[in-house]
């Protein structure tokens, strides 16, 4: 044997085992078995997260859902067709006529970019997937990604087992599914992924304390900022966490590095989003984000100087700094207030702090069902067993606190608070509940199964001893069996809870969250009735009206009309101009002559109403009428809510007030309806939503005429007549 050089090491040992045996040896190793098991679980979790969201496609079709997704879809089409720069500069003249909307500057473009990139990538790979299908499946795809991130997050917080449980729980948590079924092409679809990723990378950055990891977190923050307005939640939660760490004495240089890097890079990146821009510096909502940065710098400077200066000098310095800080702060605030840079707290801010604020002051916010305060029932509905498992997780977090679990605690507590204010924010709370529950479940399972395994080993060891000491062995065995049964019971209960959680999730997804709301299906099998009225009417608009025709409808349908009907609307779901919406509300609430004047002023060619009295579709415009009156009356005092109330009740029956029965909305909804028998044994004009006969059956229109009514009368479109010839 030749002498081996020390650097090259000894001659490598080559095993004589056959290929088969090598594979067998590899597979019997615990480590590789664990890896195999883990990858299989993760793949299944990913598939589960994707597939559970396909109910809507299987039951209905591959179609974009609801309202906002239609705008996102339309924007994505624009982005793909016109390119990045055109999209950035897009002025949409098809909405908010005659004002228009600067879409490029008022949109969170993350979702559109995501879908457009996915589309381009699939094109590059020569997969001919239609853009609509890309948009439909973006949400389920990202749900799978979120589950994987939950795995990493769980792993970072505690261990691999927690990660796996977190991934599995995240895959099917109904609170998240509600916003991410196939077709729900909304900001939240990618934003929850971005949110969880940012938090995960932040915790990782805190644990590692390196610049690279913090920069990574900052990029995740950019994605979140580009996707959803709730990025503010991140940029308030992280400073809050830093403050808590500071106060609790766990502040370390790692946090300083992570936060400083995150602040600098994250701010710069987020400011690239046009809708955010300098708001990221000037907005009050981000005061804590910027303030904590300054505070940290001052603290670190002081710590540095204390090592250089004597105690007395240092005391003076602290005194000076405090005075200077106070003076600069006061002066700065004064300057900012005077120059108008410091915006007063916005309604959104107050709404988040005071649940009753919107109800009192902003009817347009209150009119949206997803902005209502959350009920207890919806916690159970959206989170199920997690509601009970999360407090246990909190217990485990407090029991052995680490930087990561403290962050999770802060995240969870704030998210729970916000989810109580608005139903929609349940979405943000869901990941927190999932992670806490994962910690609880994995801790319980770990300790239970560990105790199940250890006595077995102990038994064999003690067995020869036990034969010698007969009496003690009996009690020992008894002890072991009781422990065993307790642990088995714990395992069984946990299994039962998880099983009921998963079946509940599937049920909720299939029953509650998988309806596209653009197509309505009632009945099963041969009795299946498809109400496709929305698309029927929108498509009619698209093909049979002048290309520049303006359509007036309540704002809920604005996005759908522009996306599916390709026609200009007066107001849409963006709701950026309350006065404009109030004008439409006023027109709907006025009598026909007054409304005609308003419609002429707004260049309206068609008026569109949603009417459910014929088909029994309950979320129609008559049921929303109260908000039109309130929002209209909020700006135009001519509209008085009391005029529409009969004994404190909005009614269109014979008890209804004259103002109500002469309003444009009433006329457009019930035109021709008075002659129809809708239900057997009831008189003509029987409204199937309100369950009574309407008050005024002989509706005459002077300034409009019926242009189109869909098959089940859900959408009714009226043409606004031109001015009559004066000669």
């Amino acid at each position, binding site marked *: 044997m030749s002498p081996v050089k020390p650097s090259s090491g000894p001659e490598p040992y080559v095993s004589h085992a056959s290929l088969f045996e090598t594979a067998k040896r590899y597979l019997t190793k615990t480590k590789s078995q664990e890896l195999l098991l883990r990858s299989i679980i993760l793949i299944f979790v990913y598939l589960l997260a994707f597939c559970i969201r396909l109910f809507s496609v299987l039951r209905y079709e591959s179609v974009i859902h609801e309202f906002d997704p239609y705008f996102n879809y339309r924007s994505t089409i624009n982005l793909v067709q016109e390119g990045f720069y055109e999209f950035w500069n897009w002025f949409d003249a098809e909405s908010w006529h005659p004002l228009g909307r600067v879409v490029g500057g008022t949109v969170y473009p993350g979702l559109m970019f995501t879908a457009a990139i996915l589309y381009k990538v699939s094109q590059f790979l*020569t997969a*001919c997937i239609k853009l609509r299908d890309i948009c439909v499946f973006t949400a389920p795809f990202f749900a799978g990604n979120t589950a994987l991130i939950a795995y990493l997050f769980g792993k970072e917080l505690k261990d691999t087992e927690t990660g796996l449980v977190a991934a599995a729980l995240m895959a099917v948590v109904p609170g998240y599914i509600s916003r991410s079924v196939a077709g729900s092409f909304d900001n939240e679809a990618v934003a929850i992924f971005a949110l969880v990723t940012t938090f995960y990378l932040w915790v990782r950055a805190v644990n590692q304390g390196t610049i690279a990891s913090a920069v990574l977190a900052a990029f995740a923050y950019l994605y979140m900022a580009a996707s959803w307005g709730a990025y503010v939640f991140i940029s308030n939660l992280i400073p809050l966490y830093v403050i808590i760490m500071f106060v609790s004495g766990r502040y370390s240089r790692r946090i300083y590095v992570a936060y400083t890097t995150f602040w600098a890079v994250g701010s710069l990146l987020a400011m690239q989003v046009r809708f955010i821009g300098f708001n990221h510096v000037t907005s009050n909502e981000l005061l804590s984000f910027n303030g904590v940065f300054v505070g940290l710098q001052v603290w670190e400077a002081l710590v540095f100087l204390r090592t250089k200066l004597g105690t007395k000098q240092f005391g003076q310095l602290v005194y000076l700094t405090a005075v200077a800080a106070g003076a600069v702060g006061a002066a700065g605030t004064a300057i900012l207030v005077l120059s108008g840079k410091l915006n007063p707290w916005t309604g959104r801010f107050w709404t988040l702090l005071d649940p009753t604020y919107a109800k009192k002051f902003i009817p347009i916010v209150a009119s949206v069902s997803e902005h209502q305060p959350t009920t207890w029932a919806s916690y159970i509905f959206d989170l199920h067993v997690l509601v009970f498992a999360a407090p246990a997780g909190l217990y485990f977090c407090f029991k052995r606190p680490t930087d990561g679990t403290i962050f999770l605690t802060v995240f969870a507590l704030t998210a729970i608070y916000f989810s109580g204010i608005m139903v929609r924010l349940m979405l943000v709370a869901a990941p927190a509940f999932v992670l806490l529950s994962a910690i609880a479940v994995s801790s319980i399972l770990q300790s239970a199964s560990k105790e199940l395994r250890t006595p077995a080993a102990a038994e064999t060891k003690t067995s020869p001893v036990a034969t010698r000491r007969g009496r003690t062995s009996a009690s020992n065995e008894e002890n072991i069996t009781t422990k065993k049964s307790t642990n088995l019971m714990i395992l069984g209960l946990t299994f039962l809870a998880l099983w009921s959680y998963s079946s509940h999730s599937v049920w909720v997804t299939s029953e509650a969250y998988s309806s596209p709301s653009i197509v309505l299906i009632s009945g099963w099998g041969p009795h299946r009735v498809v109400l496709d009225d929305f698309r029927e009417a929108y498509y009619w608009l698209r093909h049979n009206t002048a290309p520049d025709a303006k359509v007036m409808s309540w704002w809920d349908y604005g996005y759908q009309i522009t996306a599916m009907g390709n026609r200009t609307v007066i107001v849409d779901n963006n709701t950026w101009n309350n006065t404009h919406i109030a004008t439409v509300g006023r027109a709907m609430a006025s009598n026909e002559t007054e409304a005609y004047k308003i419609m002429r002023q707004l260049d309206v060619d068609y008026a569109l109403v949603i009417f459910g009295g014929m088909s029994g579709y309950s979320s129609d415009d008559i049921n929303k009428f109260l908000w039109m009156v309130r929002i209209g009356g909020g700006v135009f005092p001519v509209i008085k809510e009391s005029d529409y109330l009969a004994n404190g009740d909005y009614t269109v029956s014979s008890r209804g007030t004259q103002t109500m029965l002469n309003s444009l909305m009433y006329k457009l909804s019930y035109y021709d309806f008075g002659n129809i028998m809708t239900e057997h044994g009831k008189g003509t004009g029987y409204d199937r939503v309100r369950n009574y006969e309407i008050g005024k059956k002989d509706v005459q229109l002077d300034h409009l005429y*019926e242009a*189109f009514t869909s098959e089940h*009368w859900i959408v009714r479109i009226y043409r606004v007549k031109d001015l009559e010839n004066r000669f």
Partner: protein
Amino acid sequence: MVRLTHLLLASLLALASSVLADNIKLQQVDRKISLNSQFVRITETVKVKNVGNQVVSEVILCESLGGDAVLSSYKVVETSSKNVLTVSSATVAGAPAEAACHSVNLAKPLPAGETVGLTVTAVLAKAQIPYPAELGQHETQLMLYNGNVYVLSPYSVSSQTTEVILPTSTVKSYTDEKPVSKSDNKIKYGKYDLIKPFTEKRLSVHFENNKPFKHILTYVKEIEVSHWGNIYVEEKYEIKNAGAKHTGSFSRLKYAHMNLKANSFRDLKAILPRSAHSLYYVDLIGNISTSNVRKAPTSTVMDLELRYPLLGGWKVDFTIGYSVPLKGFLTSAKSGQRRLTMDLSSPLEDVFIEDMVVRVVLPEGATNIKANLPYDMEKSFDIKYTYLDTTGRPVLVLHKQNVAAPEHAAKFSVDYDFNTVHILREPLLLVGVFFALFVAVIAYNRMEFTITRDDKWEAARSKEVLATYMEQIQALLEDEATILLGLARATNQVREASEVDTAQREKTTVEKRLKDLEEKVKPLLAAVESRSVRVGSQVRDVLDKARLLQSRYFKQLSDRIDLVKKGVALNEISRKLAPAQDALNAAKRELEGTIMTVFGAY
């Protein structure tokens, strides 16, 4: 250029025939004009006589096209032999502007004094004009047809009759050129004798026609052939109700409850091949949920309902698609030549197509593409890129305007050469891509991108090297376990004294191999110890345990051999050796446990 020469040729022909005009006389013309649909269908039986003294091989026939009317289909058949004659359009001197003339090539030249019978079928579209042009929902539709009372002809006509067939008996007015008679839904003109060439007299009929005027503005059909076993067909339609324009309000109440539907329509019927499957019916915003499919004995019938009823002037678009298997549509010859045979026109019944494009997408690698068409169409080629295409698929594009539904329904075929090897292109591409990907990952893992080699790097590197040694030692221990397992097997096989020698031989080989391993593990152990004393001592511990286990195995063998030599019964041997065997098993388990704890991390 080619078209120009065609035109020139045609006009030359026209000139020639006009010279011959005096030689031909139409003895008898019986014409039927059917207005019983959205089209004007004209059938003429013509008796042509050669009154000159030369042989005639061409006859000029003309149709009157008033207004925007277009001649969609024109066919001439020799009455006696039923032979379809070749027809080319011709311009004739002295013909009125609205005349569309064709020169007909007779199957065999007509000698002087002979007669030949011809049957002409012409389909005119857009020849019925709504009058009034606008229509309320409660009204019925009235149409106006303008033609010529006499048959337009460059020849003099000896005797002729014209019969106009109407959809209903309601007629507002019609041209009164005696003799004329009207009975029920028919108006008869003639017979007229001795009419000079190109005699014009406007024939105008104003009548009720509530038949749907289904105009397809654009029709694009794409046939995509996959040699993996499927033909995909997708058809895009833009359809319009070309009847009288709807005016005033559209009342759903009147439409649905009082059955006032004016000239509107909503239903379409598509007759697809029997083997059609995976059908869909969609538009830009998703599925159209109002359709029904049923299988008929020879076809698949798709009853389509449009998204909304089309009142006069209203438009809508939609797409239908389906797949058919290759069988019955694609045939192949041994030489690699394939023939695709499909329906050329739309499967919809009773429609007029203004602009038809048929795209035949053939698989990558198809060459020598030739189309056999039942009628003239513009041909061009294109390339389409779909799933996993590299060079793109060749597309044969066929284009034709003014297509009438039943008349142009015909099969067409496309011949092309295709080598079966090409169908492996896509799977091979996928295999190649994945292979390249894995190679790239392997290469990446072998590379190092460290910029600075600091202590941290050194530590990580040392750890990595340590890991490789540990892996090797572990493999060595596993090999040792396998060898000992063999020894144990040999031990158990010792049943009688005669078998002792084999066992002894086995023992020596095992000893040798173990010694060999012992030699090999020494440098590895030293290398581990040089990197980490802690791990080194752990490994040493494991190796000690392994040696202990070895000696137990050997002890077991020698004990057994002794007992066998003594001639002790087998079950007695097992009983005697059992405690030692238990101890051995325990030691083995313990060793495995230690190996797992020491080597598990690597």
